[in-house]
């Protein structure tokens, strides 16, 4: 119906990510677009405000590469492993390298970050939630406030909308118009996408529109809100894509070692980000067997019937 939005990653990032932008690469452990993060590093974007519930390795790498001036987040760690050391070097004064400044920090809880995206996506001035009561978080984040219920006067907490300039989501599949379908952990991709001015959808596979239309309940973002579609197999590595490949837990552990040392981190970036021209080259560098080892056996959902009504 519409014209194709299919572009390569370089084009998508060049068109939609600009210095100073607020960028959200979402995906809760699952479907994190490392491919987009690496291309942002290669294009040497600067002064980005990076929003993400769990900054994960992708933001640790982007911070190490000097892309970020600020983080908006709710949990700052290497899931299942430990710390994000590059980010710690920019948040702990004693660890700060000469000439570097501290990252700006704006911090919430998980529900608070979700609420920020929901408010942004629903065009609400705030999102109410039962969190933060007697926590010190509201003391250090002036954007966590209370709101009084008009029914009985009870006070709950509220967070303001977050509307990224661009949200980047990874998913299993989309059609060329940008209708995106996803299964497994849904994170807050839908809300972060609807909250954004632009959406870049990165997928493992481009499918005909008929595949999307055969199962419309699986659509998390319609082409209407998507500015660019990028087909990038293994684009979420070292995170994973449900049904396509496994989380590369070995790399998550390895990053803990690499990232403890600034020079080793820089060397890694040189080899695996600056040193490859795109994700296809990154995948090729691992060798085909490497990804075979991450491929799960099949667990089919089964098909349901929507019925043909004429």
């Amino acid at each position, binding site marked *: 119906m519409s014209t194709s939005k299919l572009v390569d990653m370089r084009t998508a990032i060049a068109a939609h990510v600009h210095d100073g932008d607020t960028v959200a690469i979402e995906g809760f452990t699952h479907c994190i677009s490392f491919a987009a993060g690496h291309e942002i590093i290669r294009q040497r974007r600067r002064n980005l405000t990076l929003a993400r519930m769990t900054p994960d390795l992708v933001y640790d790498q982007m911070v190490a590469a000097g892309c970020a001036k600020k983080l908006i987040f709710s*949990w700052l760690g290497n899931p299942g492993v430990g710390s994000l050391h590059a*980010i710690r070097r920019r948040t702990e*004064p004693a660890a700060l390298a000469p000439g570097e400044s501290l990252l700006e920090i704006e911090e919430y*809880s998980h529900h608070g970050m979700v609420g920020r995206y929901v408010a942004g996506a629903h065009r609400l001035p705030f999102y109410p939630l039962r969190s933060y*009561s007697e926590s010190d978080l509201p003391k250090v984040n002036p954007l966590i406030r209370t709101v009084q219920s008009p029914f009985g006067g009870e006070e709950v907490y509220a967070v303001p909308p977050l509307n990224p300039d661009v949200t980047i989501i990874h998913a299993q599949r989309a059609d060329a118009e940008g209708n995106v379908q996803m299964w497994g952990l849904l994170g807050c991709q839908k809300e972060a996408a609807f909250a954004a001015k632009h959406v870049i959808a990165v997928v493992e596979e481009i499918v005909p529109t008929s595949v999307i239309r055969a199962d419309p309940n699986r659509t998390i973002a319609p082409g209407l809100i998507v500015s660019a579609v990028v087909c990038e197999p293994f684009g979420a590595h070292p995170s994973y894509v449900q049904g396509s490949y496994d989380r590369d837990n070995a790399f998550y552990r390895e990053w803990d070692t690499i990232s403890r040392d600034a020079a080793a981190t820089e060397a890694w970036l040189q080899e695996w980000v600056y040193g490859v021209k795109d994700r296809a080259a990154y995948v090729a560098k691992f060798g085909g067997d490497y990804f075979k080892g991450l491929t*799960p056996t099949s667990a089919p959902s089964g098909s349901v019937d929507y019925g043909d009504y004429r």
Partner: protein
Amino acid sequence: MSAQRPASKSELMVVASAHALTGKRVCFVGVGLPNIAVNLAKRTVAPEMELVYEAGVFGANPARLPLSIGDPTIVTGSTATVSMHDLFGLYLQGGRIDVGFLGGAQIDRFGNLNTTVIGDYAAPKTRLPGSGGACEIAINAKEILVIMRQSTRSFVKELDFRTSPGNLGGAVAAAKTRAAQGWGGSGPSGVITDLGVYGFDDDGEMALRSLHPGATLDQVRASIGWEIRIPQSFPATPTPTDEELRLIREELDPTGAYVS
């Protein structure tokens, strides 16, 4: 199975945590030790327990031990996989979670927890992960179990930062705040360490409930930064059974990644 090597401190923590889940129905699972404890409980004292992962999974049935809270193995074969909005809104805030597990870098005598910073917030000595879902789990899960190793660095008189509220300044203040602010839960019900199991007394303050086999009161006192309440008499924590140790060592953590 026999002639098992004796339980390690981590194994004692895991087994005591599993026992604390006896008969529980819906448990919010964290990674690491809580994850192993919950999976052990499901195989022993709480077979009907539903595992909820904050990543968005209800009724998980993991075929392997998940390294992270977002491992694909928690999704495949689960009862429901949902958005974070649904998980935190409908399940947690909606009041459907019986037990939440929390840990932290610091805990105080009232079970308040710090997972945010050591030192000053604006210029921290150590930047920790932050809240994640901990702050709202502490407020909205019906009860909270804490798993932490004891040390004077972590069991402190005063938190550097209160990420997740426990019994605040004591039971009276906590009860008042919970009612006024519409908390879904009643806060911490137990703390399981490498030395013992603690409960909270009528003042809302931590008190020893049982001492692990091999641990001493001197060790307990030396690794807590305040004068810990110790009742006149208390039992020993039950020694892990051979079957419990077998489950941990052979099924749940065969590489000893967590429990060693």
